[in-house]
């Protein structure tokens, strides 16, 4: 057979060659001129895995652990990887019913058959231990670990605050947070969030088509380690806090106890309170709703957010201001003229000290009149404007009328109100008011309102005889024991120390001398100084007491509020304050019968409140 068609070899060779050239061109389009494939490859085969740092622990002032973390386990499932699962065995091991299993798998499959979703949330260590060593049999399931806050003692709930998932506002505000992250929502968890959370780390993982992690990408050169959260060493005394909470059980109100020399808050109670463990883990959502619905508002920190008329305890502040202005002298006496303002039966006060002891309303009517109307101007209106402004400056220097910059979340904190001239001008009209319009302020009623922490701060100021250090909750934090300088600064009131001595004497008499209004605060062997207050308001009066002890070189200053109590400051708040002082200074309360009486009593008016007819009497 002759080789007739040998020229056709070229046709065949050219066809072969053309195809190769076509391929090379197509590959150039894909590989050289199309950057999108590189991005797509990276997007689908790499995953940034966040490494969560452990949240910092919280300790009390003696180093007792208040808040720590416990590992819990989320059982994750990738539906498409379930192969050869012995469903019955699995259900028995994990402890769920067959129907439940089907339902959960269907839900996970609906979310995505390829990617992992949570099959069972927050399994405790004990539960997990039951099936940990059987996990290898359950292909498609794996365990993801996370941590929960644990509170060994159920105390100081409002101070410690709680942790919850970030919301949209958090995400918008700070790009550090990603959906599903946890953030401090209130209390110290919120105010120290930036240090207590630590810093997240990152692992770049290589994942396969089923979203399983295969290994670190490029040996982990893009990885960063998480930095553990800073521990908080608080000023709280756990025993005292617990004791105060026990005393405030069955009541509404609050207690703030401060170490006067340092401004460290020893105890901060807001009653009713709740067990902080309620706002952790699977049960959180339900409990949060319950607590939120409660009319008594257990999640509110009354010590910072409550605004009350100060009542008679304000007379202590009025005294030192008037003395410092020189409008009265320590020996100034006024008759108890009940036509000016109501009072209870007592002998006339012949000195400031006596007036404080007996809490004489007409006396402080006169005192405040002399402060407000100093006679600088002929017109009483103008004179009152001047006097009010002077008076207000004193009050602001004592920490009233402003948010004390405590290291708890500032948002939601109350300022209290020390009215200024603009306030009354707006209220009554320019020069349409004078002392006679605003005299209620003299005895801590009227337009003046205070926040409990400000009253505790007043007690500390008197204890220090003229200065205070901003109350704070944390002594230092983190591995370097970082301290906040603000909390080592003395805030001077500018009032002479001698006048505070007089106020302290008066407060001593309140507790220790016959005719004093707060004698139930007495503790044998201790010289307790205190002042009762009965704050009128919607519903029954609040029973209020501020105190410090010992009189010289005081260790503790505090304010006690019992809301809507049927009785004055001396009846409920004073004995509770006495017990707290005894507990703190003596370490143990000897008066067990008194302790039991006030622990069990339930003086607060039932909620919701109905308006009652105001009594004219004040103590």
């Amino acid at each position: 057979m002759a080789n007739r068609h040998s020229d056709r070899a070229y046709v065949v060779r050219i066809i072969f060659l053309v195809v190769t050239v076509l391929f090379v061109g197509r590959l150039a389009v894909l590989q050289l001129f199309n950057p999108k494939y590189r991005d797509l490859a990276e997007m689908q085969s790499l995953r940034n895995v966040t490494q969560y740092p452990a949240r910092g622990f919280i300790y009390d002032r003696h180093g007792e652990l208040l808040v720590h973390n416990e590992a819990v386990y989320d059982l994750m499932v990738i539906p498409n990887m379930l192969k050869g699962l012995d469903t019955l065995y699995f259900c028995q091991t994990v402890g769920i019913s067959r129907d439940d299993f089907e339902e959960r798998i269907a839900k996970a499959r609906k979310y995505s058959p390829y990617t992992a979703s949570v099959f069972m949330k927050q399994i405790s260590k004990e539960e997990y231990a039951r099936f940990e060593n059987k996990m290898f049999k359950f292909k498609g399931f794996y365990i993801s670990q996370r941590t929960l806050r644990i509170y060994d003692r159920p105390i100081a709930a409002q101070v410690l605050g709680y942790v919850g998932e970030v919301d949209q506002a958090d995400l918008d505000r700070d790009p550090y947070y990603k959906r599903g992250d946890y953030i401090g929502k209130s209390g110290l968890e919120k105010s120290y969030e930036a240090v207590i959370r630590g810093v997240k780390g990152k692992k770049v993982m290589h994942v396969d088509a089923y979203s399983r992690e295969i290994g670190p990408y490029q040996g982990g050169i893009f990885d960063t380690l998480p930095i553990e959260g800073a521990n908080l060493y608080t000023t709280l005394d756990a025993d005292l806090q617990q004791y105060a909470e026990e005393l405030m059980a069955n009541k509404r109100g609050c207690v703030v106890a401060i170490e006067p020399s340092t401004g460290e808050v020893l105890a901060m109670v807001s009653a009713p309170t709740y067990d902080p463990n309620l706002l952790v883990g699977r049960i959180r959502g339900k409990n949060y709703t319950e607590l939120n619905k409660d009319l008594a508002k257990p999640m509110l920190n009354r010590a910072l957010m409550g605004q009350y008329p100060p009542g008679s305890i304000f007379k202590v502040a009025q005294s030192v201001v008037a003395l410092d202005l020189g409008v009265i002298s320590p020996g100034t006496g006024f008759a108890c003229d009940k036509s000016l303002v109501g009072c209870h039966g007592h002998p006339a006060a012949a000195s400031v000290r006596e007036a404080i002891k007996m809490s004489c309303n007409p006396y402080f009517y006169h005192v405040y009149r002399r402060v407000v109307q100093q006679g600088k101007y002929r017109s009483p209106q103008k004179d009152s404007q001047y006097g009010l402004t002077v008076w207000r400056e004193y009050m602001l220097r004592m920490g009233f009328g402003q948010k004390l910059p405590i290291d708890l979340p500032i948002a939601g904190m109350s300022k209290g109100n020390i009215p200024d001239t603009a306030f009354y001008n707006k209220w009554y009209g320019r020069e349409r008011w004078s002392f006679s319009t605003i005299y209620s302020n003299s005895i801590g009623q009227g337009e003046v309102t205070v926040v409990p922490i400000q009253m505790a701060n007043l007690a500390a100021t008197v204890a220090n005889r003229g200065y205070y250090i901003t109350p704070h909750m944390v002594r230092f934090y983190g591995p370097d024991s970082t301290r906040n300088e603000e909390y080592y600064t003395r805030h001077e009131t500018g009032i002479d120390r001698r006048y505070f001595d007089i106020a302290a004497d008066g407060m001593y008499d309140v507790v220790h001398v016959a005719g004093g209004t707060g004698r139930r605060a007495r503790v044998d062997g201790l010289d307790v100084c205190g002042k009762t207050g009965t704050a009128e308001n919607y519903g029954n009066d609040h029973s209020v007491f501020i105190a410090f002890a010992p009189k010289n070189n005081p260790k503790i200053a505090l304010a006690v509020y019992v809301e809507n109590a049927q009785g004055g400051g001396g009846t409920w708040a004073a004995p509770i304050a006495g017990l707290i002082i005894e507990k703190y200074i003596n370490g143990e309360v000897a008066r067990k019968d008194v302790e039991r009486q006030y622990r069990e009593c339930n003086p607060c008016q039932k909620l919701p409140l109905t308006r009652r007819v105001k009594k004219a009497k004040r103590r």
Partner: protein
Amino acid sequence: MYQERIKIDWWTVALYAAIMLFGWMNIYSACYDEAHAAIFDFSRFHGKQLVWMGASILTAAFILLTEPRVFSNTAYPIYGGVTVLLVLTLFLAITVNGGNSWIELGGFRLQPSEFAKFATALAVAKYLSAIDTDLKDLRTKVVALAIIAVPAALVFLQHDTGTALVFLSFVFPLYREGVSGVVMVIGAVAIALFVLALLVNKYILLGALLLLALFYLFVWLNKRSSRDYWRAAGVLAVCAAFIFSVDFVFNHVLESHQRERIEVLLGQSDDLQGSGYNVHQSKIAIGSGGIIGKGFLRGTVTKANFVPEKHTDFIFCTVGEEWGWVGCVVLLALYTVLLQRLIVMAERQRSPFSRIYGYCVASILFMHLFVNVGMVIGLVPVIGIPLPFFSYGGSSLVAFTILLFIFIRQDASKNQLL
């Protein structure tokens, strides 16, 4: 008788070895797993492939030591044996990946369709090289077509469409031996019309063809006879019938997965999670390789199972991802040089049997290369056939080795008169 001189074409052997070794490296990388990095781990694909490579080299050596005339003499028995095996496969097959082309012989899996290719090549060469055949005769044409069509049909019945399509490659040796080139042109036109009919409105397409016919008649031709008009009208009528039958074929003859694969290729479907997934992922893998690739063992897309059949039909992805455009061009160059060389070698044969067989070898290899790489880079619908000497797989590697080395053996004794 004179002393027989054997002259093996070592260049071809070297190209074969180079492709096979590069292939093994890519199988190793595609299924790389640090826990099983040992080269001689025979539980892994790369370890098994080493065994198949050893078997292939032994087979090649055995073929080179065989008398060349043995193959031409046993062409029909081999063809007959393989055909019987194909028939048996229809009844004994086990199902692998939706196809029924595998049989099990004493724990050994075998894909007879892989061997049908060289058996058919031998039979075609044997038949067309016979003294009494002439492709001008209708009878010769029919018999030659039958030799090709019988195994192709049997393979098709095994649902191995890819391998069945490979039998189309015999169009090249037939063309070389005298069948009119018009056959190839008609085939090309049919494919073009098929694609156009799916893409473009059929009446517009028909209008365009009419314009083309008018152009041919009144501009191209200087003198027109009535025969020219009839011929043009006839071609046009056939084309019209073809265009309007495309829909029917597409919707009723093709299976749904084939339909989807064609739609994906034509960009009419972008179901990236379903039928479009494979090609989308292989394009990502190759595209992400860039100019020089991510480096050996550094591929992320292929290794992470995004690409299916990454060690067999989609092995080219690993080349694209880890070796980049440069690596792809080098591999394609190796194949191209091999194919060109095979044609050159075929043309230098004295015996028609060797020449025809050489063309068959080159054409089969070309068809595999064209369909496999074309599929991976999205130029051909997804048709699962291996890349010769490169993809993982014992049957295909051994079968391609037999295919190639029979020709190398023929070429080594080309000066000997058979």
